[in-house]
């Protein structure tokens, strides 16, 4: 007897990719893809059911399909298409409540995987440099997606208490990047010049979308020998990139602005709809956030294929060159090197590279 996996939030790229991936697993019989809107991408033959998880219909879907694994990916920071922030918040919070209510009543559900975010730690100067899964945030996120994620995790913990027979796995993803990722940070990095906060160089961590799909897959199956896939895990690539490094590798110049100006510019940009520059995004780009991934490695048994730097490199390849491509700068320095060394009457050496 195979598994029936129900996936929410499939109209997004990551949800679609996950549905296509998990269908290829031999132990999976059927994948039920749920979202409020019809996805533009194909789902590889999965059964798509158009249902809004904010409505009680989700309980009926769950009962009819007899799903034993629920992968909840509809916890996101941005609206799909032209939704407002209110819709997003409702989908995140009310949607999760409805889905969990449905799961609680369903006798078949054995496993619940929730896509959360490291946003739950907030981002403050008084926080420790590296967050572990147990670090309490010094300042709880006051609003926006981060608060949604905190509330979603709260409901999930309540559900785990009420249904101890269900294996619950909460994956706190760092910023997901990749060639097709559609996250606020990806759109920020697509700006021709990057506004930054003057006097701050935040540490950022990325996780590649391939790794995100893979870890979701690990979490939705039975655990491998010697690993445990229920609990809360930080998911991030190894290493750290500073925002200044990111901008140089992207070849996009930065415009340092004072913090009040950034907040103002953020609301302006948000009004114009160019990029979702939400307050929590500004906090991230001010103070940065780094999480420990020891639990992910040791307990969950997941080794990401991409480090933070490799994830970013893959992302850079997928974008067009910026205004100051690093190759051009490197070339310019090399030319100076050649000129200087020739000017001083010596042949250029290869030590410049």
């Amino acid at each position, binding site marked *: 007897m195979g598994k029936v996996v129900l996936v929410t939030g499939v109209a997004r790229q990551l949800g679609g990719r996950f549905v296509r991936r998990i269908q290829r697993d031999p132990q999976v019989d059927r994948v039920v893809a749920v979202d409020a809107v019809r996805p533009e991408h194909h789902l590889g033959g999965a059964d798509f059911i158009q249902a809004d998880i904010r409505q009680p219909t989700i309980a009926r879907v769950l009962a009819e399909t007899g799903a034993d694994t629920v992968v909840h990916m509809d916890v996101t920071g941005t609206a799909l298409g032209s939704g407002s922030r209110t819709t997003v918040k409702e989908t995140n919070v009310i949607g999760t409540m409805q889905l969990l209510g449905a799961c609680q009543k369903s006798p078949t559900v054995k496993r619940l995987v929730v896509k959360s975010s490291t946003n739950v730690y907030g981002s403050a100067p008084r926080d420790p440099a590296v967050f572990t899964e147990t670090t309490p945030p010094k300042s709880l996120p006051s609003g926006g997606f981060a608060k949604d994620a905190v509330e979603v995790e709260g409901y999930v913990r309540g559900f785990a208490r009420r249904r101890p027979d269900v294996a619950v796995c909460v994956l706190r993803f760092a910023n997901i990047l990749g060639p097709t990722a559609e996250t606020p940070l990806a759109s920020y990095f697509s700006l021709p010049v990057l506004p930054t906060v003057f006097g701050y160089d935040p540490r950022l961590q990325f996780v590649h979308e391939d790794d995100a799909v893979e870890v979701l897959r690990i979490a939705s199956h039975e655990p491998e020998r010697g690993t445990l896939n229920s609990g809360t895990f930080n998911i991030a690539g190894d290493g750290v990139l500073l925002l200044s490094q990111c901008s*140089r590798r992207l070849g996009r110049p930065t415009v340092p602005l004072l913090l009040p100006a950034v907040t103002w510019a953020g609301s302006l940009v948000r009004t114009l709809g160019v990029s979702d520059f939400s307050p929590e995004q500004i906090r991230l780009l001010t103070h940065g956030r780094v999480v420990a991934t020891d639990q992910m490695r040791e307990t969950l048994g997941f080794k990401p294929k991409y480090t933070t730097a490799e994830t970013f490199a893959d992302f850079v390849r997928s974008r067009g060159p910026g205004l100051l491509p690093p190759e051009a700068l490197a070339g310019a320095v090399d030319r100076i090197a050649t000129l200087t060394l020739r000017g001083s009457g010596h042949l250029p050496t290869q030590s410049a590279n």
Partner: protein
Amino acid sequence: MADAKVIPFDDDRSRSAAVQRPARRRGAGSRRTGEPAVVREVGEVGEVQPLPGRFPAQDDVSVTPEEEPPRQPRDGGLERRVASGLAFLRRRLTGDYDVDDFGYDEELTDQVLMSLLRPVYDKYFRVEVKGIENIPAEGGALIVANHSGTLPLDGLMMQVAVHDHHPADRHLRLLAADLVFVLPVVNELARKLGHTLACAEDAERLLGAGELVGVMPEGFKGIGKPFGERYKLQRFGRGGFVSTALRKGVPIIPCSIVGAEEIYPMIGNAKTLARLLGFPYFPLTPTFPWLGPLGAIPLPTKWTIQFGEPIPTDGYPPEAAEDPMLMFNLTDQVREQIQHTLYKLLVQRRSVFF
């Protein structure tokens, strides 16, 4: 002033025999005997080089011993240094360098930030380092030092001392107050220098990774104390550093810093202004803020940094970290040792400025 110039070279001689010769050679050059040509060329190298080079501020001294043949060195040296400077520039411009989880940028620290601090360390405060051999060559260790001087220059000088003098090239990772990470620019530089927030989580993570961690448990009470209370150690926080060291089983190395107390003699504290600005204190010194930015120049005192005998903590059972009595005792032991060494160094000191 002539004295002041000689002393750093004496320091150098004691730290490495290799540097001894160029120091002498430079002396010979200035007396116009020996090989003035070579010496002058080498001096020029230091000036031509426009980029932050691989070598520290006294590079005209420390480069020479590497190239022993008299003809080859200047060309090879110049070329190599220009090349390494450009390679450095290339890496920085293209973002091709690594930082650790705490944001520590080793390359930037070694090649730029340390070179900026070194003149202050060598020429201005003429820091004399003692007992550097008490810092283990590998593995985690917690250096506990006294804190003074209104601005945390003592921490930075301690970092330069370890960086420049330790034979195993160890880097000191300082634990800084949360105020540091609130202030723009300061927080960025602090992270790149390898500092992190003074909290048990960060300290344990660093010690667990085998890093050398520096902490000044007096905190604002020590750095912002009035001039009249100089060299009187304040309360050592709540002894959190001891339990951290106990949990990780790393030795505690007491460190006494003499000279930092007198750089900004704090004769008053504008408490209202401090509250307005959100600072723990607002110092009034004989020169600050009366002379404006000029008053913010520290007095050129002569410093001594003494690292004391390590206090081992690996002999205690794991539950010892939870024992408040033991913690208080160990905290007192560390505090006493630092205070004692401070008095000893003060007795030995000839004058505040020499």
